[in-house]
Protein backbone atom coordinates (compact mmCIF):
# COMPACT_ATOMS: atom_id res chain seq x y z
CA UNK A 1 0.00 0.00 0.00
CA UNK A 2 2.69 2.50 0.96
CA UNK A 3 5.92 1.94 -0.89
CA UNK A 4 7.83 4.60 1.06
CA UNK A 5 6.78 3.39 4.42
CA UNK A 6 9.76 4.10 6.60
CA UNK A 7 11.47 6.61 4.38
CA UNK A 8 11.76 9.50 6.77
CA UNK A 9 12.66 7.24 9.68
CA UNK A 10 15.55 5.94 7.66
CA UNK A 11 16.85 9.39 6.78
CA UNK A 12 19.50 10.23 9.30
CA UNK A 13 20.43 13.76 8.27
CA UNK A 14 18.30 16.71 9.19
CA UNK A 15 18.78 18.56 5.92
CA UNK A 16 16.93 15.92 3.96
CA UNK A 17 13.94 15.95 6.28
CA UNK A 18 13.70 19.72 6.24
CA UNK A 19 13.28 19.63 2.48
CA UNK A 20 10.02 17.70 3.06
CA UNK A 21 8.64 20.39 5.33
CA UNK A 22 6.03 21.71 3.03
CA UNK A 23 4.35 18.41 2.22
CA UNK A 24 1.30 17.76 4.39
CA UNK A 25 1.42 14.65 6.53
CA UNK A 26 -1.90 14.95 8.32
CA UNK A 27 -4.69 17.05 6.93
CA UNK A 28 -8.00 17.65 8.70
CA UNK A 29 -10.73 19.14 6.53
CA UNK A 30 -13.85 20.51 8.19
CA UNK A 31 -13.60 17.95 10.95
CA UNK A 32 -16.48 17.63 13.33
CA UNK A 33 -16.82 15.20 16.21
CA UNK A 34 -20.04 14.88 18.13
CA UNK A 35 -20.38 12.38 20.96
CA UNK A 36 -23.91 11.17 21.16
CA UNK A 37 -25.04 9.59 24.41
CA UNK A 38 -28.62 8.76 25.35
CA UNK A 39 -29.57 12.27 26.35
CA UNK A 40 -26.58 14.52 25.86
CA UNK A 41 -24.88 15.54 22.67
CA UNK A 42 -21.34 16.79 23.13
CA UNK A 43 -19.64 18.66 20.34
CA UNK A 44 -15.99 17.80 20.98
CA UNK A 45 -14.63 19.28 17.74
CA UNK A 46 -16.32 21.89 15.65
CA UNK A 47 -15.24 22.43 12.04
CA UNK A 48 -11.53 22.01 12.50
CA UNK A 49 -9.23 22.65 9.54
CA UNK A 50 -5.64 21.81 10.29
CA UNK A 51 -2.57 20.71 8.38
CA UNK A 52 0.48 19.12 9.96
CA UNK A 53 3.44 19.01 7.60
CA UNK A 54 6.03 16.29 7.34
CA UNK A 55 8.79 16.62 9.89
CA UNK A 56 6.90 19.19 11.98
CA UNK A 57 6.80 19.13 15.76
CA UNK A 58 3.48 20.66 16.80
CA UNK A 59 2.16 21.08 20.30
CA UNK A 60 -1.51 21.43 21.14
CA UNK A 61 -2.74 23.29 24.22
CA UNK A 62 -6.09 24.21 25.64
CA UNK A 63 -8.27 23.86 28.72
CA UNK A 64 -9.51 20.52 29.90
CA UNK A 65 -12.37 19.15 27.83
CA UNK A 66 -11.68 21.32 24.81
CA UNK A 67 -11.18 18.31 22.55
CA UNK A 68 -7.40 17.75 22.44
CA UNK A 69 -7.54 14.01 23.01
CA UNK A 70 -10.38 13.76 20.55
CA UNK A 71 -8.25 15.54 17.98
CA UNK A 72 -5.41 13.09 18.55
CA UNK A 73 -7.67 10.06 18.34
CA UNK A 74 -8.93 11.24 14.97
CA UNK A 75 -5.42 11.93 13.68
CA UNK A 76 -4.39 8.49 14.92
CA UNK A 77 -7.33 6.80 13.18
CA UNK A 78 -8.54 5.47 16.52
CA UNK A 79 -11.94 7.01 15.98
CA UNK A 80 -14.01 8.30 13.09
CA UNK A 81 -15.11 11.92 12.74
CA UNK A 82 -18.84 12.59 12.49
CA UNK A 83 -18.10 15.02 9.67
CA UNK A 84 -15.21 16.08 7.44
CA UNK A 85 -12.26 14.32 5.89
CA UNK A 86 -8.92 13.12 7.20
CA UNK A 87 -5.98 12.73 4.85
CA UNK A 88 -2.85 10.91 5.86
CA UNK A 89 0.13 11.38 3.59
CA UNK A 90 -2.11 12.72 0.86
CA UNK A 91 -4.76 10.01 0.97
CA UNK A 92 -8.24 10.27 2.37
CA UNK A 93 -8.97 7.49 4.86
CA UNK A 94 -12.74 7.93 4.85
CA UNK A 95 -13.50 4.72 2.99
CA UNK A 96 -10.87 2.59 4.70
CA UNK A 97 -11.90 -0.74 6.24
CA UNK A 98 -11.06 -1.82 9.77
CA UNK A 99 -8.20 -3.89 8.40
CA UNK A 100 -6.76 -1.05 6.32
CA UNK A 101 -6.99 1.40 9.21
CA UNK A 102 -5.25 -1.10 11.48
CA UNK A 103 -2.49 -1.50 8.93
CA UNK A 104 -2.06 2.23 8.56
CA UNK A 105 -1.89 2.72 12.33
CA UNK A 106 0.65 -0.03 12.56
CA UNK A 107 2.95 1.24 9.86
CA UNK A 108 2.67 5.02 10.09
CA UNK A 109 1.68 5.99 13.59
CA UNK A 110 3.21 5.62 17.02
CA UNK A 111 1.28 6.55 20.16
CA UNK A 112 2.49 7.81 23.51
CA UNK A 113 -0.05 8.18 26.31
CA UNK A 114 -0.12 10.11 29.56
CA UNK A 115 -0.46 6.94 31.61
CA UNK A 116 1.99 4.94 29.49
CA UNK A 117 -0.38 2.01 28.80
CA UNK A 118 2.20 -0.69 29.15
CA UNK A 119 0.98 -4.27 29.53
CA UNK A 120 1.99 -5.16 33.06
CA UNK A 121 2.22 -8.88 32.37
CA UNK A 122 4.76 -8.45 29.60
CA UNK A 123 8.46 -7.69 30.02
CA UNK A 124 9.89 -4.40 28.76
CA UNK A 125 11.17 -6.14 25.64
CA UNK A 126 7.83 -7.84 24.92
CA UNK A 127 6.03 -4.52 25.37
CA UNK A 128 8.31 -2.81 22.89
CA UNK A 129 7.84 -5.64 20.40
CA UNK A 130 4.06 -5.23 20.48
CA UNK A 131 3.53 -3.11 17.33
CA UNK A 132 5.87 -5.41 15.40
CA UNK A 133 3.69 -8.38 16.32
CA UNK A 134 0.94 -6.95 14.18
CA UNK A 135 3.22 -6.44 11.21
CA UNK A 136 3.39 -9.27 8.70
CA UNK A 137 6.65 -10.70 7.44
CA UNK A 138 8.89 -10.03 10.42
CA UNK A 139 10.77 -12.93 12.01
CA UNK A 140 11.05 -13.22 15.76
CA UNK A 141 14.71 -12.39 15.50
CA UNK A 142 14.09 -9.20 13.53
CA UNK A 143 11.46 -8.13 16.01
CA UNK A 144 13.85 -8.66 18.87
CA UNK A 145 16.60 -6.72 17.13
CA UNK A 146 14.36 -3.78 16.39
CA UNK A 147 13.03 -3.73 19.92
CA UNK A 148 16.56 -3.78 21.31
CA UNK A 149 17.54 -0.94 18.99
CA UNK A 150 14.53 1.12 20.09
CA UNK A 151 15.32 0.52 23.76
CA UNK A 152 18.88 1.56 23.06
CA UNK A 153 17.67 4.90 21.73
CA UNK A 154 15.80 5.65 24.95
CA UNK A 155 18.72 4.43 27.05
CA UNK A 156 16.97 1.41 28.56
CA UNK A 157 18.86 -1.50 27.03
CA UNK A 158 19.81 -2.68 30.51
CA UNK A 159 16.18 -3.15 31.54
CA UNK A 160 14.80 -5.44 28.84
CA UNK A 161 13.92 -8.28 31.25
CA UNK A 162 12.22 -6.03 33.78
CA UNK A 163 8.49 -5.72 34.12
CA UNK A 164 6.73 -2.32 34.03
CA UNK A 165 5.98 -2.47 37.76
CA UNK A 166 9.73 -2.56 38.45
CA UNK A 167 10.39 0.75 36.67
CA UNK A 168 10.03 4.41 37.62
CA UNK A 169 7.47 6.60 35.89
CA UNK A 170 10.07 8.21 33.63
CA UNK A 171 11.47 4.83 32.70
CA UNK A 172 8.00 3.56 31.89
CA UNK A 173 7.37 6.49 29.59
CA UNK A 174 10.70 5.79 27.90
CA UNK A 175 9.59 2.21 27.35
CA UNK A 176 6.38 3.55 25.81
CA UNK A 177 8.45 5.81 23.55
CA UNK A 178 10.64 2.86 22.56
CA UNK A 179 7.45 0.96 21.74
CA UNK A 180 6.30 3.85 19.54
CA UNK A 181 9.73 3.93 17.87
CA UNK A 182 10.05 0.19 17.29
CA UNK A 183 7.70 0.28 14.35
CA UNK A 184 9.66 3.19 12.79
CA UNK A 185 6.53 5.35 12.30
CA UNK A 186 6.51 8.60 10.40
CA UNK A 187 4.10 10.13 12.87
CA UNK A 188 4.16 10.15 16.64
CA UNK A 189 1.07 11.26 18.51
CA UNK A 190 1.66 12.02 22.16
CA UNK A 191 -1.18 12.82 24.57
CA UNK A 192 0.31 14.63 27.56
CA UNK A 193 3.41 12.43 27.58
CA UNK A 194 4.89 14.29 30.55
CA UNK A 195 1.63 14.79 32.42
CA UNK A 196 2.37 12.10 35.00
CA UNK A 197 6.07 12.93 35.44
CA UNK A 198 8.02 15.42 37.53
CA UNK A 199 9.79 18.23 35.67
CA UNK A 200 13.19 16.53 35.53
CA UNK A 201 11.79 13.38 34.00
CA UNK A 202 9.50 15.49 31.84
CA UNK A 203 12.50 17.31 30.42
CA UNK A 204 14.20 13.99 29.68
CA UNK A 205 11.19 12.81 27.70
CA UNK A 206 10.91 16.14 25.91
CA UNK A 207 14.58 15.94 24.89
CA UNK A 208 14.00 12.47 23.52
CA UNK A 209 11.10 13.66 21.38
CA UNK A 210 12.98 16.73 20.19
CA UNK A 211 15.93 14.56 19.19
CA UNK A 212 13.65 12.18 17.37
CA UNK A 213 12.09 15.01 15.42
CA UNK A 214 15.43 16.62 14.61
CA UNK A 215 17.44 13.50 13.77
CA UNK A 216 14.89 11.22 12.19
CA UNK A 217 12.46 13.78 10.90
CA UNK A 218 9.52 12.16 12.65
CA UNK A 219 6.34 14.22 12.55
CA UNK A 220 5.17 14.75 16.12
CA UNK A 221 1.91 16.09 17.49
CA UNK A 222 1.98 16.53 21.24
CA UNK A 223 -0.81 17.57 23.57
CA UNK A 224 0.51 19.32 26.67
CA UNK A 225 -0.56 21.55 29.55
CA UNK A 226 2.99 22.81 30.08
CA UNK A 227 3.79 26.16 28.42
CA UNK A 228 7.54 25.54 28.72
CA UNK A 229 7.30 22.28 26.86
CA UNK A 230 5.04 23.79 24.25
CA UNK A 231 7.45 26.62 23.53
CA UNK A 232 10.22 24.16 22.72
CA UNK A 233 8.27 22.99 19.67
CA UNK A 234 8.12 24.66 16.28
CA UNK A 235 4.44 25.41 16.29
CA UNK A 236 1.86 25.79 19.01
CA UNK A 237 -1.83 25.34 18.37
CA UNK A 238 -4.40 26.44 20.91
CA UNK A 239 -7.83 24.99 21.21
CA UNK A 240 -10.88 26.28 22.98
CA UNK A 241 -14.19 24.54 23.17
CA UNK A 242 -13.72 22.33 20.14
CA UNK A 243 -12.20 24.93 17.85
CA UNK A 244 -8.71 26.05 17.02
CA UNK A 245 -8.14 29.55 18.31
CA UNK A 246 -4.53 30.14 17.28
Amino acid at each position, binding site marked *: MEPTLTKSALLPDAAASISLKNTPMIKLLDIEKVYQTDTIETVALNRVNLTINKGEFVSVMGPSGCGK*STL*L*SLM*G*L*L*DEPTGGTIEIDGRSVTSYS*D*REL*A*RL*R*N*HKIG*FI*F*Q*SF*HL*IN*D*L*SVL*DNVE*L*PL*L*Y*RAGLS*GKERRQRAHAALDKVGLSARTRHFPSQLSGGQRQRVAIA*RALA*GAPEIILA*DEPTGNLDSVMGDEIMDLLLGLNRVEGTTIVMVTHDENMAHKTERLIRFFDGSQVS
Partner: protein
Amino acid sequence: MIRHLFTLIWNRKRSNFLLMSEILLSFFVLFAVSVLLVSNYYNYQQPLGFEYENVWELSVNPGQDTLNRTEKVSQIMRRLQSTPGVVAVTSTSSNTPFSFSTMNTTQYTYKGKGGPLTERYDADDDMVKVLRPKVVAGRWFDRRDAAATRPPVVVNQKFVEKLFGQESPVGKVLVTSDGKEEWQIVGVVETFRSGSDFASNDPAIFDRRILQDSAVLGAYEMPVLLVRVQPGSGAVLEQQVVKDIKDISKGWIAKVNTLQENRHDKLKIMLTPLIALGVVALFLIINVALGLFGVLWYNINQRKAEIGLRRAMGATGSGISAQFLGEMLVVTTLGVLGGVLLAAQFPLLGAFGVETPVYIMAIVLAALLIYTLTAICAFQPSRIAAGIQPAVSLREE
Protein backbone atom coordinates in the same frame (compact mmCIF):
# COMPACT_ATOMS: atom_id res chain seq x y z
CA MET B 1 1.98 -14.54 17.75
CA ILE B 2 1.78 -18.04 19.19
CA ARG B 3 4.91 -17.41 21.22
CA HIS B 4 3.35 -14.17 22.37
CA LEU B 5 0.24 -16.06 23.50
CA PHE B 6 2.28 -18.49 25.53
CA THR B 7 4.33 -15.67 27.06
CA LEU B 8 1.12 -13.90 28.07
CA ILE B 9 -0.40 -17.05 29.52
CA TRP B 10 2.79 -17.91 31.36
CA ASN B 11 3.13 -14.39 32.78
CA ARG B 12 -0.49 -14.56 33.92
CA LYS B 13 -0.05 -18.02 35.34
CA ARG B 14 -1.70 -17.20 38.61
CA SER B 15 -5.08 -16.22 37.20
CA ASN B 16 -4.80 -18.75 34.39
CA PHE B 17 -4.07 -21.44 36.94
CA LEU B 18 -7.47 -20.85 38.52
CA LEU B 19 -9.17 -21.05 35.16
CA MET B 20 -7.22 -24.19 34.32
CA SER B 21 -8.20 -25.79 37.61
CA GLU B 22 -11.83 -25.02 36.94
CA ILE B 23 -11.53 -26.63 33.54
CA LEU B 24 -9.67 -29.61 34.95
CA LEU B 25 -12.29 -30.16 37.64
CA SER B 26 -15.14 -29.75 35.18
CA PHE B 27 -13.45 -32.16 32.84
CA PHE B 28 -13.16 -34.68 35.62
CA VAL B 29 -16.79 -34.42 36.66
CA LEU B 30 -17.90 -34.66 33.05
CA PHE B 31 -15.61 -37.64 32.68
CA ALA B 32 -17.27 -39.41 35.62
CA VAL B 33 -20.73 -38.72 34.22
CA SER B 34 -19.57 -39.79 30.78
CA VAL B 35 -18.25 -43.08 32.13
CA LEU B 36 -21.66 -43.85 33.59
CA LEU B 37 -23.55 -42.84 30.50
CA VAL B 38 -21.13 -44.43 28.06
CA SER B 39 -20.86 -47.69 29.98
CA ASN B 40 -24.63 -47.98 30.15
CA TYR B 41 -24.92 -47.19 26.49
CA TYR B 42 -22.10 -49.60 25.72
CA ASN B 43 -23.81 -52.39 27.66
CA TYR B 44 -27.10 -51.56 26.02
CA GLN B 45 -25.45 -52.13 22.64
CA GLN B 46 -24.05 -55.54 23.63
CA PRO B 47 -26.02 -58.72 22.87
CA LEU B 48 -28.02 -60.05 25.81
CA GLY B 49 -26.93 -63.57 24.94
CA PHE B 50 -30.44 -65.05 24.92
CA GLU B 51 -33.79 -64.59 23.21
CA TYR B 52 -36.60 -63.21 25.34
CA GLU B 53 -39.31 -62.78 22.70
CA ASN B 54 -42.18 -65.26 22.99
CA VAL B 55 -40.99 -66.45 26.38
CA TRP B 56 -43.39 -66.42 29.30
CA GLU B 57 -42.49 -66.54 32.92
CA LEU B 58 -44.83 -68.61 35.10
CA SER B 59 -44.56 -67.88 38.79
CA VAL B 60 -46.26 -70.61 40.72
CA ASN B 61 -47.04 -70.02 44.36
CA PRO B 62 -47.97 -73.16 46.29
CA GLY B 63 -48.93 -71.18 49.38
CA GLN B 64 -49.41 -73.48 52.41
CA ASP B 65 -49.47 -76.62 50.28
CA THR B 66 -46.23 -78.48 51.01
CA LEU B 67 -47.38 -81.89 49.86
CA ASN B 68 -45.66 -83.41 46.81
CA ARG B 69 -44.52 -80.10 45.47
CA THR B 70 -41.78 -81.48 43.26
CA GLU B 71 -44.12 -84.01 41.79
CA LYS B 72 -46.81 -81.47 41.07
CA VAL B 73 -44.38 -79.07 39.40
CA SER B 74 -43.04 -81.91 37.24
CA GLN B 75 -46.57 -82.81 36.31
CA ILE B 76 -47.30 -79.20 35.37
CA MET B 77 -44.21 -79.12 33.18
CA ARG B 78 -45.21 -82.31 31.37
CA ARG B 79 -48.71 -80.96 30.80
CA LEU B 80 -47.33 -77.66 29.42
CA GLN B 81 -44.94 -79.47 27.12
CA SER B 82 -47.82 -81.28 25.52
CA THR B 83 -49.99 -78.17 25.21
CA PRO B 84 -50.35 -77.00 21.61
CA GLY B 85 -48.67 -73.62 21.15
CA VAL B 86 -45.96 -74.34 23.71
CA VAL B 87 -42.50 -74.90 22.23
CA ALA B 88 -40.44 -75.76 25.30
CA VAL B 89 -40.54 -75.47 29.09
CA THR B 90 -37.70 -75.06 31.57
CA SER B 91 -37.59 -74.74 35.32
CA THR B 92 -35.08 -72.34 36.78
CA SER B 93 -34.11 -70.36 39.83
CA SER B 94 -35.83 -67.12 40.78
CA ASN B 95 -33.15 -64.97 39.07
CA THR B 96 -34.94 -65.16 35.73
CA PRO B 97 -34.09 -62.62 33.03
CA PHE B 98 -35.04 -59.03 33.98
CA SER B 99 -36.08 -60.08 37.48
CA PHE B 100 -35.03 -58.22 40.60
CA SER B 101 -33.30 -61.18 42.17
CA THR B 102 -29.69 -62.21 41.87
CA MET B 103 -27.76 -65.21 43.17
CA ASN B 104 -24.04 -64.69 43.04
CA THR B 105 -21.14 -66.60 44.48
CA THR B 106 -17.36 -66.81 44.40
CA GLN B 107 -17.28 -70.47 45.35
CA TYR B 108 -15.84 -71.87 42.12
CA THR B 109 -12.06 -72.26 42.09
CA TYR B 110 -9.71 -73.84 39.62
CA LYS B 111 -6.34 -75.27 40.69
CA GLY B 112 -6.18 -72.98 43.65
CA LYS B 113 -7.19 -69.90 41.71
CA GLY B 114 -10.19 -68.15 43.24
CA GLY B 115 -13.12 -67.67 40.93
CA PRO B 116 -14.73 -64.35 40.00
CA LEU B 117 -18.02 -63.15 41.41
CA THR B 118 -20.37 -65.26 39.33
CA GLU B 119 -24.13 -65.21 38.80
CA ARG B 120 -25.46 -68.74 39.29
CA TYR B 121 -28.56 -70.09 37.53
CA ASP B 122 -30.43 -73.36 37.87
CA ALA B 123 -30.89 -74.88 34.46
CA ASP B 124 -32.18 -78.04 32.87
CA ASP B 125 -31.71 -79.69 29.49
CA ASP B 126 -34.52 -77.72 27.85
CA MET B 127 -33.35 -74.24 28.87
CA VAL B 128 -31.33 -74.07 25.68
CA LYS B 129 -34.59 -74.44 23.74
CA VAL B 130 -36.38 -71.76 25.78
CA LEU B 131 -33.80 -68.99 26.14
CA ARG B 132 -31.60 -70.10 23.24
CA PRO B 133 -28.21 -69.05 24.61
CA LYS B 134 -25.47 -69.37 22.03
CA VAL B 135 -23.24 -72.35 22.82
CA VAL B 136 -19.72 -71.59 21.56
CA ALA B 137 -17.75 -74.56 22.95
CA GLY B 138 -18.66 -78.02 24.23
CA ARG B 139 -22.41 -78.53 24.52
CA TRP B 140 -25.51 -77.72 26.58
CA PHE B 141 -26.78 -80.24 29.19
CA ASP B 142 -28.51 -83.38 27.98
CA ARG B 143 -29.54 -86.89 29.15
CA ARG B 144 -25.91 -88.05 29.22
CA ASP B 145 -25.28 -85.76 32.16
CA ALA B 146 -27.63 -87.80 34.35
CA ALA B 147 -24.93 -90.44 34.71
CA ALA B 148 -22.03 -88.01 35.26
CA THR B 149 -19.83 -88.54 38.32
CA ARG B 150 -19.45 -84.82 38.89
CA PRO B 151 -22.35 -82.39 38.49
CA PRO B 152 -22.01 -80.75 35.06
CA VAL B 153 -21.97 -76.98 34.62
CA VAL B 154 -22.06 -74.61 31.66
CA VAL B 155 -20.24 -71.28 31.97
CA ASN B 156 -20.12 -68.11 29.90
CA GLN B 157 -17.08 -66.67 28.14
CA LYS B 158 -16.55 -63.98 30.74
CA PHE B 159 -16.20 -66.69 33.39
CA VAL B 160 -13.68 -68.49 31.18
CA GLU B 161 -11.75 -65.29 30.59
CA LYS B 162 -11.54 -64.57 34.31
CA LEU B 163 -10.63 -68.06 35.49
CA PHE B 164 -8.86 -69.76 32.62
CA GLY B 165 -7.55 -66.99 30.40
CA GLN B 166 -6.50 -68.60 27.14
CA GLU B 167 -6.91 -72.24 28.30
CA SER B 168 -9.76 -74.29 26.88
CA PRO B 169 -12.28 -74.77 29.70
CA VAL B 170 -14.33 -77.74 28.46
CA GLY B 171 -13.74 -80.82 30.62
CA LYS B 172 -12.03 -78.85 33.40
CA VAL B 173 -13.08 -79.51 36.96
CA LEU B 174 -14.11 -76.67 39.31
CA VAL B 175 -13.96 -77.17 43.07
CA THR B 176 -15.00 -75.24 46.14
CA SER B 177 -12.10 -73.79 48.07
CA ASP B 178 -12.47 -76.47 50.76
CA GLY B 179 -12.35 -79.16 48.04
CA LYS B 180 -15.63 -80.77 49.14
CA GLU B 181 -17.68 -80.11 46.03
CA GLU B 182 -16.70 -80.57 42.41
CA TRP B 183 -18.23 -79.69 39.04
CA GLN B 184 -17.21 -80.44 35.50
CA ILE B 185 -17.54 -77.88 32.71
CA VAL B 186 -19.35 -79.37 29.72
CA GLY B 187 -19.95 -76.27 27.64
CA VAL B 188 -19.48 -72.54 27.17
CA VAL B 189 -22.10 -69.97 26.13
CA GLU B 190 -21.19 -66.63 24.64
CA THR B 191 -22.76 -64.09 27.01
CA PHE B 192 -25.65 -64.10 29.42
CA ARG B 193 -26.63 -60.62 30.59
CA SER B 194 -29.93 -61.37 32.27
CA GLY B 195 -30.20 -58.46 34.74
CA SER B 196 -31.33 -55.82 32.27
CA ASP B 197 -30.37 -54.18 29.02
CA PHE B 198 -27.86 -52.15 31.02
CA ALA B 199 -26.31 -55.11 32.85
CA SER B 200 -22.62 -55.54 32.27
CA ASN B 201 -21.27 -58.76 30.81
CA ASP B 202 -20.43 -60.57 34.05
CA PRO B 203 -19.36 -64.16 34.68
CA ALA B 204 -22.24 -66.64 34.76
CA ILE B 205 -22.57 -70.33 35.52
CA PHE B 206 -25.47 -72.75 34.92
CA ASP B 207 -26.02 -75.65 37.30
CA ARG B 208 -27.88 -78.68 35.99
CA ARG B 209 -30.87 -79.21 38.26
CA ILE B 210 -33.55 -81.51 36.93
CA LEU B 211 -36.78 -81.58 38.87
CA GLN B 212 -37.90 -84.91 37.44
CA ASP B 213 -34.69 -86.68 38.37
CA SER B 214 -33.51 -85.98 41.82
CA ALA B 215 -33.81 -82.47 43.02
CA VAL B 216 -36.40 -81.66 45.59
CA LEU B 217 -37.87 -78.23 46.02
CA GLY B 218 -37.05 -76.69 49.41
CA ALA B 219 -39.96 -75.82 51.65
CA TYR B 220 -39.86 -72.14 50.78
CA GLU B 221 -38.60 -72.39 47.23
CA MET B 222 -40.92 -71.05 44.61
CA PRO B 223 -40.84 -72.91 41.37
CA VAL B 224 -40.27 -70.63 38.37
CA LEU B 225 -41.02 -71.92 34.91
CA LEU B 226 -40.02 -70.31 31.63
CA VAL B 227 -42.12 -71.29 28.64
CA ARG B 228 -41.31 -70.62 25.00
CA VAL B 229 -44.55 -70.27 23.06
CA GLN B 230 -45.26 -70.09 19.38
CA PRO B 231 -45.02 -66.53 18.02
CA GLY B 232 -48.39 -64.83 18.17
CA SER B 233 -49.71 -66.79 21.15
CA GLY B 234 -51.94 -64.64 23.29
CA ALA B 235 -54.63 -64.55 25.90
CA VAL B 236 -56.23 -67.82 24.89
CA LEU B 237 -53.10 -69.80 25.51
CA GLU B 238 -52.44 -67.85 28.69
CA GLN B 239 -55.85 -68.78 30.13
CA GLN B 240 -55.31 -72.37 29.11
CA VAL B 241 -51.97 -72.47 30.88
CA VAL B 242 -53.32 -70.97 34.09
CA LYS B 243 -56.24 -73.39 34.04
CA ASP B 244 -53.95 -76.39 33.52
CA ILE B 245 -51.79 -75.34 36.45
CA LYS B 246 -54.83 -74.91 38.71
CA ASP B 247 -56.25 -78.28 37.62
CA ILE B 248 -53.11 -80.10 38.58
CA SER B 249 -52.11 -78.24 41.71
CA LYS B 250 -55.55 -77.57 43.19
CA GLY B 251 -55.49 -74.00 44.45
CA TRP B 252 -51.94 -72.90 43.75
CA ILE B 253 -51.66 -69.35 42.51
CA ALA B 254 -50.18 -69.00 39.04
CA LYS B 255 -49.08 -65.78 37.42
CA VAL B 256 -48.02 -65.27 33.81
CA ASN B 257 -45.75 -62.49 32.59
CA THR B 258 -44.03 -62.24 29.27
CA LEU B 259 -40.27 -61.61 29.43
CA GLN B 260 -40.95 -58.71 27.11
CA GLU B 261 -43.07 -57.05 29.81
CA ASN B 262 -40.46 -57.83 32.45
CA ARG B 263 -37.75 -56.32 30.30
CA HIS B 264 -39.79 -53.19 29.82
CA ASP B 265 -40.49 -52.82 33.55
CA LYS B 266 -36.85 -53.33 34.42
CA LEU B 267 -35.73 -50.89 31.78
CA LYS B 268 -37.97 -48.20 33.25
CA ILE B 269 -36.58 -48.72 36.71
CA MET B 270 -32.99 -48.73 35.46
CA LEU B 271 -33.56 -45.62 33.38
CA THR B 272 -34.91 -43.50 36.22
CA PRO B 273 -31.57 -42.96 38.00
CA LEU B 274 -29.84 -42.51 34.67
CA ILE B 275 -32.25 -39.76 33.71
CA ALA B 276 -31.84 -38.18 37.13
CA LEU B 277 -28.09 -38.32 36.65
CA GLY B 278 -28.43 -36.81 33.21
CA VAL B 279 -30.44 -33.92 34.64
CA VAL B 280 -27.88 -33.36 37.40
CA ALA B 281 -25.13 -33.48 34.80
CA LEU B 282 -26.97 -30.95 32.68
CA PHE B 283 -27.27 -28.54 35.61
CA LEU B 284 -23.63 -29.07 36.31
CA ILE B 285 -22.70 -28.28 32.74
CA ILE B 286 -24.81 -25.13 32.82
CA ASN B 287 -23.09 -24.15 36.05
CA VAL B 288 -19.66 -24.73 34.61
CA ALA B 289 -20.63 -22.78 31.52
CA LEU B 290 -21.87 -19.82 33.55
CA GLY B 291 -18.69 -19.91 35.61
CA LEU B 292 -16.48 -19.93 32.55
CA PHE B 293 -18.57 -17.27 30.91
CA GLY B 294 -18.29 -15.03 33.98
CA VAL B 295 -14.54 -15.48 34.22
CA LEU B 296 -14.03 -14.68 30.55
CA TRP B 297 -16.34 -11.72 30.67
CA TYR B 298 -14.51 -10.37 33.69
CA ASN B 299 -11.17 -10.97 32.01
CA ILE B 300 -12.14 -8.97 28.99
CA ASN B 301 -13.49 -6.08 31.03
CA GLN B 302 -10.26 -6.09 33.01
CA ARG B 303 -8.28 -5.92 29.83
CA LYS B 304 -10.17 -3.18 28.00
CA ALA B 305 -7.18 -0.84 28.18
CA GLU B 306 -4.92 -3.57 26.81
CA ILE B 307 -7.36 -4.24 23.99
CA GLY B 308 -7.55 -0.56 23.09
CA LEU B 309 -3.79 -0.36 23.13
CA ARG B 310 -3.40 -3.37 20.88
CA ARG B 311 -5.92 -1.88 18.49
CA ALA B 312 -3.94 1.38 18.48
CA MET B 313 -0.79 -0.62 17.74
CA GLY B 314 -2.41 -2.13 14.67
CA ALA B 315 -4.46 -5.14 15.77
CA THR B 316 -7.69 -5.66 13.86
CA GLY B 317 -10.96 -6.46 15.63
CA SER B 318 -10.83 -10.03 14.42
CA GLY B 319 -7.19 -10.25 15.50
CA ILE B 320 -8.22 -9.34 19.05
CA SER B 321 -11.01 -11.89 19.05
CA ALA B 322 -8.62 -14.53 17.70
CA GLN B 323 -6.18 -13.71 20.47
CA PHE B 324 -8.80 -14.23 23.16
CA LEU B 325 -10.04 -17.45 21.60
CA GLY B 326 -6.44 -18.59 21.25
CA GLU B 327 -5.67 -17.88 24.89
CA MET B 328 -8.79 -19.77 25.90
CA LEU B 329 -7.89 -22.68 23.64
CA VAL B 330 -4.43 -22.97 25.19
CA VAL B 331 -5.73 -22.75 28.76
CA THR B 332 -8.50 -25.24 28.01
CA THR B 333 -6.05 -27.63 26.40
CA LEU B 334 -3.77 -27.45 29.43
CA GLY B 335 -6.73 -28.13 31.73
CA VAL B 336 -7.98 -30.98 29.57
CA LEU B 337 -4.48 -32.48 29.36
CA GLY B 338 -4.30 -32.51 33.15
CA GLY B 339 -7.76 -34.07 33.28
CA VAL B 340 -6.86 -36.72 30.72
CA LEU B 341 -3.72 -37.62 32.67
CA LEU B 342 -5.87 -38.15 35.78
CA ALA B 343 -8.66 -39.94 33.95
CA ALA B 344 -6.21 -42.26 32.17
CA GLN B 345 -5.30 -43.74 35.56
CA PHE B 346 -8.68 -45.51 35.69
CA PRO B 347 -8.20 -47.77 32.66
CA LEU B 348 -4.50 -48.16 33.54
CA LEU B 349 -5.40 -49.39 37.01
CA GLY B 350 -8.37 -51.34 35.69
CA ALA B 351 -10.56 -49.65 38.30
CA PHE B 352 -14.28 -50.39 38.81
CA GLY B 353 -14.28 -53.24 36.29
CA VAL B 354 -15.25 -50.88 33.48
CA GLU B 355 -13.97 -51.87 30.06
CA THR B 356 -11.07 -49.81 28.67
CA PRO B 357 -12.94 -48.74 25.50
CA VAL B 358 -15.65 -47.27 27.74
CA TYR B 359 -13.06 -45.16 29.57
CA ILE B 360 -11.51 -44.03 26.31
CA MET B 361 -14.89 -43.06 24.87
CA ALA B 362 -15.74 -41.25 28.09
CA ILE B 363 -12.46 -39.29 27.97
CA VAL B 364 -13.10 -38.30 24.36
CA LEU B 365 -16.69 -37.36 25.17
CA ALA B 366 -15.71 -35.28 28.20
CA ALA B 367 -12.97 -33.51 26.21
CA LEU B 368 -15.38 -32.75 23.37
CA LEU B 369 -17.92 -31.40 25.84
CA ILE B 370 -15.36 -29.16 27.51
CA TYR B 371 -14.11 -27.79 24.21
CA THR B 372 -17.64 -27.13 23.00
CA LEU B 373 -18.47 -25.50 26.30
CA THR B 374 -15.46 -23.19 26.31
CA ALA B 375 -15.97 -22.37 22.65
CA ILE B 376 -19.58 -21.36 23.37
CA CYS B 377 -18.57 -19.42 26.48
CA ALA B 378 -15.64 -17.69 24.81
CA PHE B 379 -17.54 -16.75 21.68
CA GLN B 380 -19.61 -13.85 23.02
CA PRO B 381 -16.89 -12.27 25.22
CA SER B 382 -14.38 -12.40 22.39
CA ARG B 383 -16.88 -10.73 20.10
CA ILE B 384 -17.25 -8.02 22.69
CA ALA B 385 -13.46 -7.75 22.81
CA ALA B 386 -13.36 -7.40 19.05
CA GLY B 387 -15.87 -4.58 19.28
CA ILE B 388 -13.90 -2.51 21.79
CA GLN B 389 -12.95 0.73 20.08
CA PRO B 390 -9.28 1.62 19.80
CA ALA B 391 -10.07 5.11 21.13
CA VAL B 392 -10.47 3.73 24.68
CA SER B 393 -6.67 3.75 24.88
CA LEU B 394 -6.72 7.55 24.93
CA ARG B 395 -9.22 7.71 27.74
CA GLU B 396 -7.64 7.45 31.14
CA GLU B 397 -9.24 5.02 33.56
